[in-house]
């Protein structure tokens, strides 16, 4: 059975169509990446699947339940980690997890052990009794992830789970996500505009732009669709011999270097270098998801990522100032 199946989901706001006819199927146990620039419709799509926003039209089954007709049943089966922090500043980590467990109807005697387990998982055991307003951004995010997991959801939505995190925390979050998939076969839907995040975590990636899915495949297949890797060689390259190779697509002189595009640089680089003759320096640029995105969406993806991350920290600061 598919974990999620959507049919022609549409969400229209007064001025914009945020999601414009999305049909997709996500398999059980899959890590599914939604990749797109800000405003592409990722969060709106996830919000509809999590029954937080009503679709204008279309339908979806999440864990076999209809999002329009059985929203509370859908909610029981999913966990959500929001893009912006939503843990309660005025409570401790333990209290946040307790509140969540009660709201999700966990049996009372399972709650305490589950809280301990989650606190250990995200490395917050020693700060469990501190108020969340004393936490760093990374700690909040980890608490938020623990909270999304504590009721054992079959499907987990992660909306930009590492936005604004430092590299070490980001790596820690990634390893939690991999663990989940392996240990619990949890289906994970992940939105991100960090290419390497999508590349390293997702089994399949949907590229979404202006509310539509424009491409959907494994990261490898997507990169293959974009085409060739680039090899830059400095030195007196034998142009005729290089051009004769079957996997070479183009050959240009660029400054003192030759810019050669080839298929599958992993397998073919050796043959290319042999044909090129005497070589002073080589640089290989493999196709990245950035190139994939540029090709399919016609724009760069991560223009305003950092600006957005800053915005969130500002909000945290405002919040601290106000609630005290």
């Amino acid at each position: 059975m598919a974990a999620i199946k959507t049919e022609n989901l549409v969400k229209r706001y007064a001025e914009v169509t945020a999601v414009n006819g999305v049909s997709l199927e996500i398999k059980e146990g899959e890590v599914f990446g939604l990749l797109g620039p800000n405003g592409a419709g990722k969060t709106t799509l996830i919000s509809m699947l999590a029954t937080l926003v009503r679709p204008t039209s279309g339908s979806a089954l999440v864990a076999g339940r209809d999002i329009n007709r059985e929203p509370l049943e859908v909610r029981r089966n999913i966990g959500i980690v929001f893009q912006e922090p939503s843990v309660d500043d005025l409570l401790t980590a333990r209290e946040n997890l307790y509140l969540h467990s009660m709201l999700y109807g966990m049996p009372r005697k399972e709650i305490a052990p589950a809280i301990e387990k989650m606190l250990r998982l995200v490395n917050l055991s020693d700060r469990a009794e501190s108020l969340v307003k004393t936490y760093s951004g990374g700690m909040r995010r980890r608490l938020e992830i623990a909270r999304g997991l504590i009721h054992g959801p079959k499907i987990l939505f992660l909306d930009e789970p590492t936005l604004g995190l430092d590299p070490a925390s980001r790596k820690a979050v990634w390893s939690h996500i991999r663990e989940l998939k392996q240990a619990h076969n949890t289906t994970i839907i992940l939105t991100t505009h960090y290419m390497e995040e999508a590349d390293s975590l997702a089994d399949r990636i949907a590229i979404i732009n202006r509310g539509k899915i424009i491409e959907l495949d494994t990261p490898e297949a997507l990169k293959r669709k974009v085409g060739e890797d680039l090899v830059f060689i400095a030195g007196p390259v034998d142009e005729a011999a290089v051009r004769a190779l079957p996997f070479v697509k183009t050959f240009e002189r660029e400054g003192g270097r030759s810019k050669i595009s080839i298929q599958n640089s992993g397998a073919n680089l050796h043959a290319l270098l042999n044909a090129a003759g005497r070589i002073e320096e080589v640089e290989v640029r493999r196709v990245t998801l950035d190139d994939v995105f540029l090709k399919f969406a016609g724009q760069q993806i991560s223009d305003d990522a950092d600006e957005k991350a800053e915005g969130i920290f500002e909000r945290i600061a405002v919040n601290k100032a106000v609630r005290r």
Partner: protein
Amino acid sequence: MNFNAVYALLLREAKIFLREKERIVSILISPLLFLFVMGKGMAGGQSPVPGYTYQQFIFPGIMAMVILFTSITYGLYIIWDKRLDFLKEVLAAPISRATLFYGKALGGMLGALIETLLLVMIGGLFIMPLGPGKMLLCFLAAVPVSFMITSMGLTIGARMKSMEGFGLVMSFLTWPLFFFSGALFDLAGAAPYIRAVSYFDPVTYAVDLMRIIMLGQGYFSVWTNLGAIALFCLAAAALGVAAFGKLQQEK
């Protein structure tokens, strides 16, 4: 209704309320100013109820004022939850909006009841002798009154978009509700057009009920007061559940 969830929401509000002790005190400041400065300042003026001073006469009204201010402020506070995304967690939980509303309303009542208790003790010490029976009755009367006003506050808070509206609500709703309630004067002696407005003010009936409990004399009967409060409770709860039903994730 999911009682576990209501309990959890109530527990959250209780913890937060008890952690913010300065809020508990700061909310009592203006009522105490009315009670001690105005109450004593106008001590020369007669009390409309014979046998009591003016300060004693307004004490039941000040009690209603404390409940009014605590409850409205609490209700409006969910704008912060909304603005800063803390409401997301509960909006995403598998609980109905009615459950959420009642959990929040009970949390607000808890705060108002703690304030009531403090004021009853202050009153018993400095204003007039209040036996345990009267104290208990005041406390019991505060239960429906705080529910009624918390529900009003939550309804408004759920519909408001920004905290800028906070001052407006205080100026155009809370203070008029207080002044027209007859907390500081006797409705029987008021100008007819003031009395006409007072009839529509839910706080009027709260003040009158408290006055009957403490001074043994009011403008309406006990049953009129209880009936009016019950009606306002039902209406406010219905409006509150509806307003919570419309709460959406803000983009």
